């Protein structure tokens, strides 16, 4: 180890500390500029923060596996906190069947059936919010409220106790980091939430037409193992709520903080899909994931031994000036294609089209009803070991006349 790490730039930054998570951008720049691969002394892991290296690590599943966990913990040596995900924490060949089933179920062509209903739901939600006030917390009233209104029903889980959904996702995404306070403190109270999530995944608790029931039907057809069905439903509940909340909040923040770009959107609605992609690029709701080397692996001429954790900074890659001009700008003239906010390669977010549909339905409803949106105070971050989101975002809107 000594001979190896001495040749690689090292850093004692803690990417999971409050300080780093409050403002990761300057730290990202530090890591990017130290070198293509940086050794993080605090966690004894290699880290990559430049676009090319992150893109390569995301796509090269042969050298950089997910099956040993996509957090700091190495499942080859440590017990995971829950049975590993059959999607996120699996590699080919075991990853094939669950991914094929979800990929088909969540494809844009299949989601078209939901689009009309979700647009109506978004219109209804925005009307309700505007009827109450024109100053409100955009995180609570919109970014959280909308996914919670449409997604659990789309999966088909029970109507009771859905308040467990956000804390579950928050905990799961914290758990990819080290066992800091965000994990160990919340672990004390998360038990009932984990239990509730587990119960929602059982066939008898799922409505007959939702994604959940369709996953079970795939098991009936022999496409996946029946004993895997509840874990695949669990993946939807883990990865499908907090992430979209964070993505929508990123979009709302971007348009509220950039009135000129909001005006461009009002003038040209065809820019909407780009606005969401650009917000995902800029904010990178999922900031980090780990991989584990399957064999001695060379990244940018740095030799990383087998069975080592590699930390990928998606957020830093999405602002790498080697790849993006003026990367800190939210710019609707930019083509954000190729950002790694949804990952890349065979683990690329299988729910990305749901995220897009939700975000676009909500923003469209807002554009239909609101002339301007502005921040009325300093928004407050919600700190999570993996997600970059907001706790609150006070805004004022002017209704269209």
């Amino acid at each position, binding site marked *: 180890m000594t001979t190896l790490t001495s040749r690689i730039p090292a850093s004692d930054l803690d990417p999971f500390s409050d300080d780093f998570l409050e403002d990761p951008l300057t730290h990202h720049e530090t890591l990017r500029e130290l070198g293509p691969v940086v050794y993080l002394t605090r966690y004894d892991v290699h880290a990559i923060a430049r676009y090319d290296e992150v893109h390569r690590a995301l796509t*090269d599943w042969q050298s950089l596996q997910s099956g040993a966990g996509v957090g700091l913990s190495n499942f080859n040596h440590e017990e995971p906190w829950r049975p590993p995900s059959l999607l996120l924490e699996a590699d080919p060949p075991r990853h094939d069947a669950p991914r*094929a089933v979800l990929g088909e179920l969540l*494809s844009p062509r299949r989601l078209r059936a939901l689009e009309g209903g979700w647009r109506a739901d978004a219109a209804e939600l925005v009307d309700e919010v505007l009827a109450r006030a024109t100053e409100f917390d955009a995180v609570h009233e919109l970014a959280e409220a909308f996914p919670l209104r449409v997604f659990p029903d789309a999966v088909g889980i029970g109507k009771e106790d859905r308040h467990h959904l956000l804390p579950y996702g928050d905990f799961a995404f914290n758990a990819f980091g080290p066992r800091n306070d965000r994990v160990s403190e919340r672990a004390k109270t998360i038990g009932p939430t984990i239990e509730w999530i587990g119960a929602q995944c059982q066939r008898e608790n799922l409505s007959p037409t939702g994604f959940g029931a369709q996953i079970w039907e795939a098991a009936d057809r*022999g496409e996946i193992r029946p004993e895997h069905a509840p874990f695949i439903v669990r993946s939807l509940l883990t990865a499908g709520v907090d992430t979209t909340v964070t993505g929508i909040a990123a979009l709302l923040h971007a348009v509220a903080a950039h009135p000129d770009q909001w005006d461009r959107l009002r003038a040209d609605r065809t820019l909407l899909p780009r606005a969401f992609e650009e917000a995902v690029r800029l904010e990178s709701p999922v900031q980090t994931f780990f991989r584990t080397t399957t064999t001695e692996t*060379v990244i940018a001429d740095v*030799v990383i031994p087998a069975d080592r954790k590699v930390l990928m900074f998606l957020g830093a890659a999405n602002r790498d000036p080697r790849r993006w001009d003026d990367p800190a700008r939210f710019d609707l003239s930019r083509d954000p*294609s190729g950002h790694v906010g949804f990952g890349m390669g065979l683990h690329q977010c299988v729910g990305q089209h749901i995220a897009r549909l939700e975000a676009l339905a909500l923003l469209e409803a807002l554009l239909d009803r609101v002339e301007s949106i502005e921040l009325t105070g300093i928004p407050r971050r919600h700190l999570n070991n993996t997600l970059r989101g907001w706790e609150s975002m006070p805004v004022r809107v002017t209704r269209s006349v």
Partner: protein
Amino acid sequence: MSATAPAAPPLNPPIARGVVTVTERRVVAEGVVEFELRRPDGSRLPDWAPGAHIDIVLPDGTTRQYSLCGDRWDAATYRIAVLRESAGRGGSITLHDSVRVGDVLGFGGPRNNFRLAPADRYLFIAGGIGITPIVPMIRQADLLGADWSLLYLGRSRSALAYAQELSAFGGRVSVRCADEVGRSELAEWRPADADVRVYACGPSRLLDAVEAWGAAPGGLAPKTERFTAAATAARSAPRAAFDVVAARSGRSTTVGQDETVVTALRRIGIDVLTSCAQGVCCTCETDVVSGRPDHRDSLLSDAEQAASACMFPCVSRSLDSRLVLDL
């Protein structure tokens, strides 16, 4: 470079997509040639799983489907094995007689209509060149520790591709050749147990017989893969140029032979959002107004390709000289 890890494929492959170069050809049985295919720059090819096939576009535009039979842990290489069919429609003859190492071929996909579902027990049945999708299935079943057996049927041993490699699996592999034992009694192989999944590929007559077994009580029906002439659309040429029109603005441009629709549109100020840039993630899905797309994605089913309501401009091209998109 390390001694133990293969060199990683280059990063961010350049625009030259949709073509592969023949890097090796090898006779693997009487009348069967295996082609090793790589991108011209050696970068990663799209991921695939056992049962997948690719479209190969020959220099004259003829398109044929071939199952991938290589090793997906080698991300930069595809392998296909092609039987020379003298009475066929000419694609295999061209590949055998005219395609040499260094030649460039168009490709589309991979697509997979023959996915290997997880199971504890499998019966694989291959008739002749139908062994090609079965070979990676066997490797995978073996890797996962499944209980599997293979019935490999053919005219004669010398015509059976990969028979030598497969013999390493010993008693799991049963080879039955017409010139040794006469016509095989297929019915004897019908599994009695419901937990045996049957995967079969080969001539229609064989697959008809296997499908006629139906499902064992409580089990699932056999899965079969057929390559029929009906499934192959005629194509213009691997990389012919064509015009693309963005219907909403009326703007148009020519898509050159070495660029994608996305790149060409970008040149005239029309950005199509993409992500994977290889036809697997769905991000750039675009509705087609008129013209027949030359589908090269991994996403659409045969029926969806035929209907052509939408296409994926990050990889797909046009069969017609003019393609109008809802942009």
